[in-house]
């Protein structure tokens, strides 16, 4: 009969009205500045840099200033300047580090490409959305001091993803260690036979440029440290896609 739909609708809204007073679960909004909704795991907006140690953020940046993200960034909002010297990273290996690392969040379009191309898992997407500033030229341009956040923070905002990343990193580190050991053993064996092949290492050249086979040799040559850099063991090239498990992309 005509009108029954109207009455049904009125009943639905009446239920909403009564329910909204005693059932907080019904509410679709929260009182924003005081309360905040829990953002979903995959929420992302702007990138940040991961440091290994919260007490010394600038010293333990995972970023080695390889500039892949700078080149890949579609709106070109990342600016990186490499350092002249080298510093030991979290593993004690000597690495180039970014002297300047800036992201202009007023330009950034949150595409996450920088995260996907980074071979070092050094840049990840953040969940901070309250970034309003009074000055659009300085307030929204984040320097590396503002960008650097510890790995524990990453675990906090993206626990599943961060666990995967850490697991992979430790596995890679272990594999690299074993490889180094093997290489060291091979080197010891080879040293007995003939002198080592000198390999020149260009600081600015990309890790992926070199064939993986040579990496073990090169690292063994460069560093006396048995704990090898992660960079030497990372297989993918600059343009290749990361492993599917690394970061769940929206498509996946």
């Amino acid at each position: 009969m005509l009108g029954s739909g109207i009455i049904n609708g009125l009943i639905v809204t009446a239920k909403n009205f009564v329910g909204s007073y005693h059932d907080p679960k019904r509410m679709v909004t929260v009182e924003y500045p005081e309360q905040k909704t829990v953002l979903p795991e995959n929420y992302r907006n702007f990138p940040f840099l991961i440091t290994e140690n919260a007490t010394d953020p600038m010293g333990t940046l995972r970023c080695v200033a390889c500039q892949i993200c700078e080149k890949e960034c579609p709106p070109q909002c990342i600016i990186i300047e490499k350092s002249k010297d080298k510093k030991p990273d979290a593993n004690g290996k000597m690495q180039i580090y970014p002297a300047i690392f800036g992201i202009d969040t007023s330009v950034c379009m949150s595409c996450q490409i920088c995260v996907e191309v980074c071979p070092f898992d050094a840049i990840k997407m953040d969940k901070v959305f309250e970034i309003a500033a009074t000055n659009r030229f300085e307030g929204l341009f984040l320097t590396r001091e503002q960008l650097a956040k510890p790995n524990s923070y990453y675990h906090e905002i993206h626990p599943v993803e961060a666990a995967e990343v850490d697991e992979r990193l430790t596995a890679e580190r272990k594999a690299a260690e074993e490889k180094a050991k093997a290489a060291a053993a091979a080197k010891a064996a080879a040293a007995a036979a003939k002198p080592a092949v000198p390999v020149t290492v260009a600081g600015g050249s990309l890790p992926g440029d070199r064939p993986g086979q040579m990496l073990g040799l090169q690292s063994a040559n460069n560093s006396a440290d048995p704990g090898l850099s992660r960079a030497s063991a990372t297989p993918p090239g600059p343009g290749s896609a990361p492993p599917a498990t690394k970061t769940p992309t929206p498509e996946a």
Partner: protein
Amino acid sequence: MSLSTLSSQLSTAATASSAAAAAASPDSFLERAPLELRDWAVNLLPTPVQWLAHHLITIVCILAVFGLFFAFTTIAERKLLARLQNRLGPNRSGLPKLSILPWHFKHTLFGLSQPFADAIKAITKEDIVPAAADKLLHFLAPVIVVAFSLMTFAVLPFGRNIIPVELDAALLYFFAAGAATELAIFMAGWSSRNKYSLLAAMRALAQLISYELPLILSVVPIVLVTSTLSTKAIVLAQSGWTFGFLPHWFVFTPWGFAGFIIFLIAALAESNRSPFDLPEAESELVAGHLTEYSGFKYALFFMAEYFGLTALSGLGVTLFLGGWQAPLPFLEFIPSYLWFMGKLICMIVFFIWVRGTLLRLRIDQLTRLAWQFLVPLALLNIANAAFWVLTTQWSLPLQFVRWGVSAAIVVIPFIMMGRALSASYAPRSYRYAP
């Protein structure tokens, strides 16, 4: 009290029995309080200006009461709509920070001061008049619309003794004053010198004219049964109770119920409210005929819309819901004007509830509903009321037949025409769109 006496009371306006019922209830102090207060204030003044003060006080009271009522209707609408959609609604604006006070007193008052914040915003906004506009008419339109929508309050009986103007042809006055709204809409659309405003004004006019017919036709049965146009007499005709608890309100008769439903739908459309808010559909048009209005003039139109809604609700309360009468005999100690305001608030809340529930109609559905459904049904309802008047003297067993026939006269056409209407609301086929 038997059913036959009930019907005899229904059919005659302000007959001896109703008048006796009205006089029997004691005029308590609270009942007379507003009038006593007015007379006291008037008597303070010198005699020559007393008549003027008498009328001025009435006008100021209407302005103040319904101005505040308007303000709190807007906040109630926003909060209620929010609750109907599982939201909280505005609850932030409160008292300003009072540095005079020694302690830091801050309370948001549940956002109740929101209308005042809105008013300040509207007043301080820039008043833009298009360069090509007809300046005088552009200015006059909001003035006329507010003035005439306020004039409609003059004939509503707000309480047993409170009626601003006691007119013999009060109902006719009400609709005559309401007719000027259409003129104001046309002036607003035409004087803006904007073709979209003009088109929207034409649409709004088409809607208002379409729905004025069922609105007036739904009131005719009341006039037929009470044989008067005076709102006061119509309220008095609804006094009394059957078996001591069933009030003689017209909404509790078959023809009255049908008339009330038609009146509600037509009133919704007349006051441009959802689901009939096509003239200024916020989510589709800019603001319809109000596109070129801003600031305080826009606020005046907004105000007039709410005044119109309140006045139509007041008329609905007066005609169908017993006006200022209490629903039950033992509740008569509550002053009549409070009953009126209570019923008025119920009507407004119902309108808000409907707005939070229903979807907007298309323009062809809108006019079809008026001309093919409401108008024939209202005409049938007039015949129904005539039947009701003719069968006033039927004895008790025949009363059941009377109720049955009267209900059938409205229910059977409702179901049949409802089927036809629902079928005609099938998805529209578009010629140029896929």
